[in-house]
């Protein structure tokens, strides 16, 4: 039993992900929408990590693929069927093609120039979605379902919505609420398995080699372009999958998903958690999404209730002091946290965890000779 064994890792990971509704309950994060977000952005971040964590190429435009995946999925719901399988497959594929195009152009440069190129392409996609492409994207209002949509496959199968809008489903199982989360969770586990395989393969090793020294790679006779491009496309497909899942759990696509802030968010998630590590990006996702959804909702009355056990004067004081950091101030707290992590733990939360575990191991090793640190 060791974490070197893929099967053990996968079993542990699956158990943790699938039991999330139980162990997240104490911190109030166990409601379906947030769980879905954890899984979806988890996929987004681990895919991003394949590019950034392994090759060191910082893409600042990954949200574009997220958006493309979403739009494709919603169009699949509108034109083909409310079943989520075609939507997910099409969303991933179309994003892959889009990533191939952008990657082929952007990977002509490296370093900051590559980042700027990807940023430019993503912002371009965002602006296009708002202006010329409004027939496809429905602009600011966002692409939404309507009862009059053709849905040819559903129509052939004789499924016609009677009243109200149809809902996304997996062969009849509705994709909102907990079933939606489990669907996303299964895909997250599959996605994690793919990244695990990549990380622990000669291919992954070559990607890491590109990160440590591209020049030397080239001198040893490797053409780095195909490796970079394939990594870019794979991570673009992960983003597309995440985007289509966003549409699966909530059939609406808006251009703001492609904005540079969304691209920046996944960079933050990855760095906060620990770039280049397997689990790090997922931790980053957890922290940021938790802040965005739970911290942003705290208000003065909630704070006061939390400090209820303290004497009135102290409780009032603490409420006043802490209230700028919650509610609309959640960005402030997140910013402080991000600064602390980057300054003291450049390797992200994962570095913190490994420091703690090393410290514990040393203490245990000193306490008893048979510490069992394997």
């Amino acid at each position, binding site marked *: 039993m060791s974490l070197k064994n893929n099967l053990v890792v996968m079993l542990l990971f699956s158990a943790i992900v699938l039991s999330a*509704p*139980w162990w997240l*309950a104490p911190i*109030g994060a*166990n*409601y*379906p*929408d*947030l769980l879905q*977000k954890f899984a979806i952005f988890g996929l987004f971040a681990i895919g991003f990590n394949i590019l950034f964590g392994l090759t060191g190429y910082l893409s600042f435009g990954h949200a574009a693929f997220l958006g493309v995946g979403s739009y494709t999925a919603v169009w699949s719901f509108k034109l083909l069927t409310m079943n989520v399988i075609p939507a997910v497959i099409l969303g991933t594929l179309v994003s892959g093609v889009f990533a191939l195009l952008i990657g082929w152009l952007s990977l002509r440069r490296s370093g900051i120039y590559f980042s700027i190129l990807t940023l430019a392409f993503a912002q371009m996609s965002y*602006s296009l979605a*708002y*202006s010329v492409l*409004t027939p496809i994207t429905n*602009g*600011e*209002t*966002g692409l*939404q379902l309507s*009862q009059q949509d053709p849905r040819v496959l559903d129509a052939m199968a004789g499924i016609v919505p009677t*009243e*109200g*809008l149809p*809902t996304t489903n997996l062969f009849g199982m509705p994709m*909102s*609420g*907990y079933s939606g989360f489990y669907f996303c969770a299964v895909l997250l586990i599959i996605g994690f398995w793919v990244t695990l395989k990549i990380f622990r393969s000669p291919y992954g090793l070559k990607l890491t080699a590109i990160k440590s020294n591209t020049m030397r790679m080239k001198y040893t006779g490797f053409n780095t372009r195909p490796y970079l491009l394939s990594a870019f496309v794979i991570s673009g497909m992960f983003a597309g999958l995440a985007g289509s899942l*966003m549409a699966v759990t*909530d059939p*609406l696509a*808006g251009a*703001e*998903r492609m904005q540079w802030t969304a691209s920046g968010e996944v960079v933050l998630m990855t760095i906060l958690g620990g770039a280049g590590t397997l689990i790090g990006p997922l931790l980053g996702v957890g922290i940021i999404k938790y802040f965005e*959804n739970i911290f*942003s*909702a705290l*208000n003065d*009355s909630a704070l006061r209730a939390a400090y209820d056990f303290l004497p009135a004067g102290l409780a009032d004081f603490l409420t006043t002091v802490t209230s700028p950091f919650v*509610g*609309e101030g959640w960005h402030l707290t997140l910013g402080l946290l991000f600064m602390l992590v980057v300054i003291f733990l450049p390797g992200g939360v994962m570095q913190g965890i490994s420091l703690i575990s090393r410290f514990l191991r040393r203490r245990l090793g000193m306490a008893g000779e048979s510490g069992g640190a394997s």
Partner: protein
Amino acid sequence: MTKKDTTNSGRRGFLKATAATGVAASAPMFFIKDGHAAAHGGMNFRNNPGKAKSIKLGFNVPQTGAYADEGADELRAFKLAVKHLNGEGDGGMLNTMKPLALKGNGVLGKKVEYVTGDTQTKSDAARASAKRMIEKDGVLMISGGSSSGVAIAVQGLCQEMGVIFMAGLTHSNDTTGKDCRRYGFRHFFNAYMSGRALGPVLKKEYGTDRKAYHLTADYTWGWTQEESIKQTTEELGWKTVKTVRTPVGAGDFSQYITPVLNSGADVLILNHYGKDMINSLTQAVQFGLKDKMVNGKQFEIIVPLFSRLMAQGAGDAIKGILGTTNWNWQLKDAGSQAFVKSFGAEYGFPPSQAAHTCYVQTLLYADACQRAGTFYPPEVIKALEGFNFDGMGNGPTEYRAEDHQCFKDVLVVRGNPNPTSQFDLLQVEQIVPRKQVEYPPTQFGCKLGPYKV
């Protein structure tokens, strides 16, 4: 479960039963809670408060972005409404609303609590925030918002989830038109009403021979407002030179305003709101549009949807400019006065129209529950549909049953040329009677959908 298995003897039966019990026991608490919640009048529904001592309402407002000022004011109004519902403070409009079923002891004897969220004026974020309120906090009703794009997105979600949505500031015809929902209600007026109300005033002020140029926020609200205003002005005999769509939150509008100067137009219509309107209007004035003479006529700027918060931001630029508004704090009726008084006592300044509509919406929802005698949404919806009320600041008002749109008088306002205080920025030019802004419920293609979801 295990007792039934007497016939199924042996190890296998035992295992089966144990497994079944295990699955049932480990089912998450929420399933069980929902499944066994005490039904209200035999009916069960999402977030049924059952025997709980309090109910929760969700206030989803923009706290960041182009409409953040409106959002902040909406939140103040919501807090005030909750206070009044629970019998704290001076009661505000509860003293003037007619008919009134509320007793000032919460709703149906339950204390009102609230949760808040940030829509960020983005459909995605707004829906995520609304979902959190519904799934985690267990709210019975969601209100707020300051963008029609967001209102429509959240309204759709609320219909799916079976939670009532009392729209905040949303002015697009689509909100109660083609995107209307059974679970969505709008007290605010809409773009069509703005057009109908403005028409006669424009005719009187600017004549029938004008050439108009539209700058339009590029989303559902901008589109429908442009359409409605265009329809009105063309009926007057005006020509539309050009309509240009601008992205929301553009910041710099100079590239859109320069072409206006050479277009031959003599009226600029700004279909913008919030900070966008502040920027575009200020820049238009800086470019000297207001001082120009075109076609032998004074150049004019019109802002069809006006608000005091925007006027405050735009400063001197708004002087003399015509527009419409849902409500203004200077109205003299008892309802408005009561609301302005308690809002002012609480926060030290008068409320905006956004605050007013959100306050009224909260009271209307609470009152409908009280009248229905239940929180069961289909019954509450029926109580709101066709409800006639008065004393809420807009004169006699009706919640039309066919499309959930409120019908009431509309105000035509003008930017005050000589303000006496920093709040005295708009003067009410005319109160346009309700019958002038009415339209048939089928006009914008509303199909409400089912009561039960």
